[in-house]
């Protein structure tokens, strides 16, 4: 399998000029895929699906390519190839076209190849005869398109913040319990959220799956402290509430009464590693994040586990 690590980039160099000159061409009935008249054409629509498996999440639906004016355009045109994001549709350059590309831009070595782009406007079916653009691709442009689309549909969930003492109850009808200074706070992300998410984009027989995997959580505890953890360990009843979390905790030393609203804002940000594979290629993209916050009251006096007859005070 060809492995590439690259950022997906679309260059909109030609698009603006092309689409402003493409105004008054007559529609052509043999236009193979006009996505304005036939938006359900499979070649116009990227199908988004959750490939299933244990990952959970994902989404289903459809998406498509759009020009700079936001109009739907085909991602793939059988005679011209894949949309390059720049007003041109690309397929591998061969023969005279390859010669022309190499004459201007030089030879390129595998795994990258010259592609030839037909530049124009499929909506008005305006294809200036001589207007071509050559581009060098390592991954087929359709694979790049689908990878971008799959990543866009990952629907990475916001962190479900869990704390002990329970200031962020799962059941919203339950009352939030305040934190107490010098009593260890346990912090973790609900396991429902802490799982890989995947989405698959497919079109014209080509399919790319993107996977988002949670790697770290950055906690801002609202009192000026920040800590980075994994998912954290859930506190369960039976564990000594005065014991610190083995891997993700905090100890407040200053009560929150002087903070805005008398509460600190606890923020958790999950960093998701993003990878994709399909169409004979795979790659890693820049990480994504998702964030959530909860207000947390921190009290000064130990308000729990004290009894008049306890003898520990």
């Amino acid at each position, binding site marked *: 399998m060809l492995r590439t690590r690259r950022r997906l980039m679309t260059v909109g160099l030609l698009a603006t000029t092309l689409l402003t000159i493409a105004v008054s061409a007559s529609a052509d009935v043999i236009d193979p895929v006009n996505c304005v008249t036939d938006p359900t054409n499979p070649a116009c629509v990227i199908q988004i699906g959750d490939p299933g498996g244990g990952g959970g999440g994902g989404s289903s639906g459809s998406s498509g390519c759009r020009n700079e004016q936001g109009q739907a355009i085909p991602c793939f045109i059988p005679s011209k190839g894949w949309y390059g994001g720049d007003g041109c549709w690309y397929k591998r350059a061969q023969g005279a076209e390859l010669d022309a590309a190499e004459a201007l831009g030089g030879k390129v070595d595998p795994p990258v190849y010259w592609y030839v782009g037909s530049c124009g406007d499929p909506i008005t079916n305006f294809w200036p005869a001589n207007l071509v*653009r*050559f581009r060098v691709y390592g991954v087929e442009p359709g694979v790049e398109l689908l990878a971008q689309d799959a990543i866009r549909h990952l629907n990475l969930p916001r962190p479900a913040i869990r704390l002990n003492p329970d200031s962020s109850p799962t059941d919203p009808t339950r009352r939030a319990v305040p934190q107490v200074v010098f009593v260890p706070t346990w912090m973790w992300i609900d396991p429902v959220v802490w799982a890989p998410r995947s989405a698959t984009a497919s079109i014209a027989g080509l399919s790319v799956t993107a996977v988002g995997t949670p790697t770290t959580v950055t906690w801002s505890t609202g009192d000026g402290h920040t800590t980075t953890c994994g998912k954290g360990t859930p506190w369960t009843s039976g564990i000594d509430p005065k014991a610190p979390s083995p891997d993700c905790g905090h100890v407040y030393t200053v009560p929150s009464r002087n903070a805005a609203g008398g509460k600190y804002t606890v923020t958790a940000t999950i960093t998701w590693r993003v990878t994709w594979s399909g169409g004979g290629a795979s790659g890693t993209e820049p990480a994504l994040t998702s964030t959530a916050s909860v207000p947390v009251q921190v009290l000064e006096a130990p308000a729990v586990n004290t009894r008049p007859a306890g003898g520990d005070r």
Partner: protein
Amino acid sequence: MWQAYIEAIRIPDPNYPDLARYSQADALNLLVRGLTTVQQQGLVGQGDVTLNPSVTAANPNTSPPTVELKDCVDTSKTRLVKKDGSPYQDTPGGKRSAKATVARISDGVWKVTEFAIFGVGTC
């Protein structure tokens, strides 16, 4: 073009003849502006950049025809110092993502018409 720029900044000379030999338009203006600032601040460049350009696109229908390049320019072995030897602290160099458009003016004559060079650590 970068070779001409490196030679120019060692003097430093915003009117270094090779600048206009290898660049024009926006690219040349940017180089001249940068070198003028260096000159006015009494600075001079040292060291050399490492280049590894590759072609990303070719536009045969533009006038003149153009080729687009990308590069990862390594500036870690370069620095700016005061020409008179007084202390000056510049920011450390490193690998910078870069792209450029090169126009074929005539057979065998190419000039950079525009370029963009991004921050340290972008490639």
